[in-house]
């Protein structure tokens, strides 16, 4: 991620938030996936009514550096700040 997914500002390498808008970029992809999950359920009506019952919870993984339970797919550990693994979201 070189640009903030919330505001488009250039991101400072090594920071887990955007200096322009304050967004926590470590959880962004998981939260956005949760948002998109509201629209991909089979119970979806033509009016795009989100189906809260079928809501999918965030999946977790263990940080290889500090052992904290952290959301799957994050680039930096929200607990210790170290890079979990090289990964491009888009």
């Amino acid at each position, binding site marked *: 991620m070189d640009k903030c997914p*919330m*505001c*488009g500002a250039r991101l400072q390498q090594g920071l887990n938030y*955007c200096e*322009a*808008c*304050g*967004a*926590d*970029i470590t*959880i*962004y992809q*998981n*939260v*956005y996936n*949760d*948002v*998109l999950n*509201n*629209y*991909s359920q089979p119970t979806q009506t033509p009016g*795009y009514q*989100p189906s*809260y019952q079928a*809501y999918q*919870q*965030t999946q977790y993984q263990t940080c290889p550096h500090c052992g904290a339970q952290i959301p799957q797919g994050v680039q930096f550990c929200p607990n210790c700040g170290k890079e979990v693994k090289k990964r491009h979201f888009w």
Partner: protein
Amino acid sequence: MVEYRILGYDMQHVRAYLQQGETIFGEGGHVVAKSPSVSIAFKAQGGLLKSLEREITGSRFFITELAGPGMVEFSSFLPGRVIQIPLEGNGIKVESNSFLFAESGVQYSASLASLGAGILGGEGIFLATFRGRGNVFVHALGGVSSYVLKQGEEIEVEAEHLLAFDENMQVSVTRLGNLRTMILGAIEQEGLFFVKVTGPGRVWVHNVSIGQLVGKIVRNLPASQGPGLNIGGFQI
């Protein structure tokens, strides 16, 4: 593909470069320049124009259709940032004064839902819903703050600072205090109103609220301007 350039620093503006046959729809009052070859039609996508033409906080939400080829530039009347929000089948709700334009694959809702009617001088906040596939461009007054909220996580945003949020998020309005004499950010109002937004989802927040800006300006007007001014039903 429409090409976009978000330009500027503290006063951002955005240019869209349209090919022949490409269209975008935008809020007519925010168009600042265009190629002569770009046509503007006051024709609403889905024939919903009528319901969108209603008066909103002293201005109108005019949806126009702009057709290429050529360039069209959108800006706001105040400094701020242009935010590009891509939709992939999902939806967002946008405070209606902040909408600049969207791609033709995006649908907007006919109902400008009012959040918290009775607050902010009686009209509440008007939200337009955008859904579909393509980019939506909105303007953040002064600058933008944003929050990424996990499932069940909540934030309370001062009502006039709310810019946009994911459609699936639950919102409710709360009021603190009920004294007519409360002076908040230079405006006298009946308490302080917050919109509570619940995750999962994304929330965009204006750094400047138009009401507070107007309040500051009015308080600095020379005395010769008269004994006071009535804004939104409140004597200032």
